């Protein structure tokens, strides 16, 4: 027993010694487990590694999920601040908001990731350096290029169906954008709100009947029930468009959007700059700089669609026979 205690104690001591060397603490508070958000967290981990911050050597990297419980998110935030994190990361609006207070009081530095409207959520006062120890990556992308792509794929597109959860802050921002931009492309938006994934099949069936195509932006509820939307739309020979490129392999026709993993890499770059001593208040909020076109050829065949060459040429990734193939461009 004594021996065991000695081993445990010396192990604890050894680990605290290695921690005493210049180990940076990057602690992530994620509101809920979700494929796109998990992808972002993975991107942050890999991005930090590429920039010389390796777990177990000079990086203490922790991801905690609040499991959709807002009070728990607050407790996780308090814990991170008390542990003197070098950088805290908030993924999901409530998680980021619970970290912001501590950052404003100067207790920690906070980098948010994958938030559509950081100004609306009061995370920052301005997009150009906020003086509140907060910056981060937004996942906001302009909707116009996406609508342009839809029109290229389906020139006779008139009515577009939009499924969203009115309880998702990001979706409300996206809907407003869509309704503003749609008339410029001669499009009419037909909305259908859902409160939970179980409402999705009905909503999708209704929209598939009334519209020429269905569009899902970044809505978590709709994306969670993506398969049922694709099934309902395919029955009516209508395509589904998404903005989340990772989702295309599950059946939608195409997506022109930021890559969530890349968003994590970009966030990691910001974190690395801060860890290397750069002033967080001088770093402006970042937006995804490039959009990637992903096309699902299997779905195109199923719908009997022939895609115009100019769309094919723009694609970065094709899904063929259930497998993703990246296009080599020189």
């Amino acid at each position: 027993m004594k021996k065991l205690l000695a081993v445990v104690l010396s192990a604890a001591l050894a680990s605290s010694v290695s921690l005493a060397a210049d180990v940076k603490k990057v602690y992530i508070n994620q509101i809920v487990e979700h494929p796109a958000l998990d992808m972002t967290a993975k991107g942050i981990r890999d991005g930090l590694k590429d920039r010389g911050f390796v777990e177990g050597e000079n990086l203490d990297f922790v991801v905690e999920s609040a499991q959709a419980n807002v009070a728990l998110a607050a407790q996780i935030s308090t814990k991170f601040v008390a542990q003197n994190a070098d950088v805290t990361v908030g993924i999901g609006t409530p998680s980021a908001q619970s970290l912001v207070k501590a950052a404003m009081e100067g207790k920690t530095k906070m980098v948010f990731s994958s938030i559509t409207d950081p100004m609306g959520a009061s995370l920052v006062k301005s997009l150009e350096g906020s003086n509140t120890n907060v910056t981060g990556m937004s996942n906001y992308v302009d909707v116009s290029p996406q609508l342009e792509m839809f029109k290229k794929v389906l020139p006779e597109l008139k009515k577009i169906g939009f499924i969203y959860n009115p309880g998702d802050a990001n979706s409300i921002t996206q809907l407003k954008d869509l309704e503003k931009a749609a008339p410029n492309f001669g499009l009419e938006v037909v909305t259908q709100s859902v409160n939970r994934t179980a409402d999705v099949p009905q909503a999708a069936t209704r929209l598939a009947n009334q519209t020429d195509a269905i569009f899902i932006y970044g809505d978590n509820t709709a994306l969670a029930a993506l398969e049922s939307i694709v099934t309902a739309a395919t029955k009516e020979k209508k395509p589904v468009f998404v903005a989340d490129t990772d989702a295309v392999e599950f059946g939608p026709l195409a997506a022109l959007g930021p890559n969530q993993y890349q968003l994590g890499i970009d966030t990691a770059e910001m974190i690395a700059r801060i860890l290397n001593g750069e002033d967080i208040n001088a770093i402006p909020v970042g937006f995804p700089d490039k959009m990637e076109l992903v096309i699902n050829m299997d779905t195109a065949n199923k719908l009997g669609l022939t895609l115009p060459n100019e769309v094919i040429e723009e694609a970065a990734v094709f899904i063929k026979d259930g497998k993703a193939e990246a296009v080599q461009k020189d």
Partner: protein
Amino acid sequence: MSLSELVMSLELGLIYGIVGMGIYLTFRIIDFPDLTCDGSFVLGAAISSILIKAGVDPFLSLIFALIGGALAGALTGILNSFFKVTDLLAGILVAFMLYSINLHVMQGTPNISLLMSPTIFVTNNLIVLGAITVILIAAFSFLLNTDIGLSIRAVGQNKRLCMNGGVNVKWMVILGVAMGNALIAMGGALFSQQQGFTDISAGIGTIIAGFAAVIIGERVLPFRSIWIKLLSCIVGSIIYRIVTSLALHAEFLNLKSYDFNLIAGLLIIIIMAMPGGRRKC
């Protein structure tokens, strides 16, 4: 666990202790398993934050949150008393409808930030929360000792006897559920002001936190007088928050971040299973 985590546990403990008092009122006093709370908690938060945004005094906004919660609870009570909806289902139905109503109250935006707005919390949150808790315990133990309050308590003990004794059981149930949800909405309003934001999803987990407060409280303070019963909800809630804070430090057991619900649940079971059973009343 550090001092700041302890302070946060105390603050959240006091806030959810008020929620616990509300759940104690429905669940124990009138024997009504009420699931309205996930909705009424957010209703209180929504009312308070939208009023603050409109320039209303933060303290005054708490009163409106209290009234809003009471109306939601009264609706559950009315569905049960007059429309013959079973107690469990009535609560679930009202909470279900409140999701839409809350979004309306919040004017269509699912997340309202109060970070740049005035709140009742200026320097020391604990003193403010402590004072509010003392006032609420005093007020509700007074209310429950008035003639009407005693009728409400009697209804929970024996409905049939009360009916024979000329007590209007239906209205007493409605009043009891309304009082309970008024407290829960108050908790929601305080939560949004303390956290600096209201999110439509903030109600998730309210019922567990409230039940934990009631049940742990009964274990540590097993006395019969009503004000100690209310106080025990606060004490139970604080213990629950300290336990959950400790559970967040269980990573040395090689647990994943998504194991938290499991750890917290097991800790509550351990507290409940500890020797020294609840005194019968």
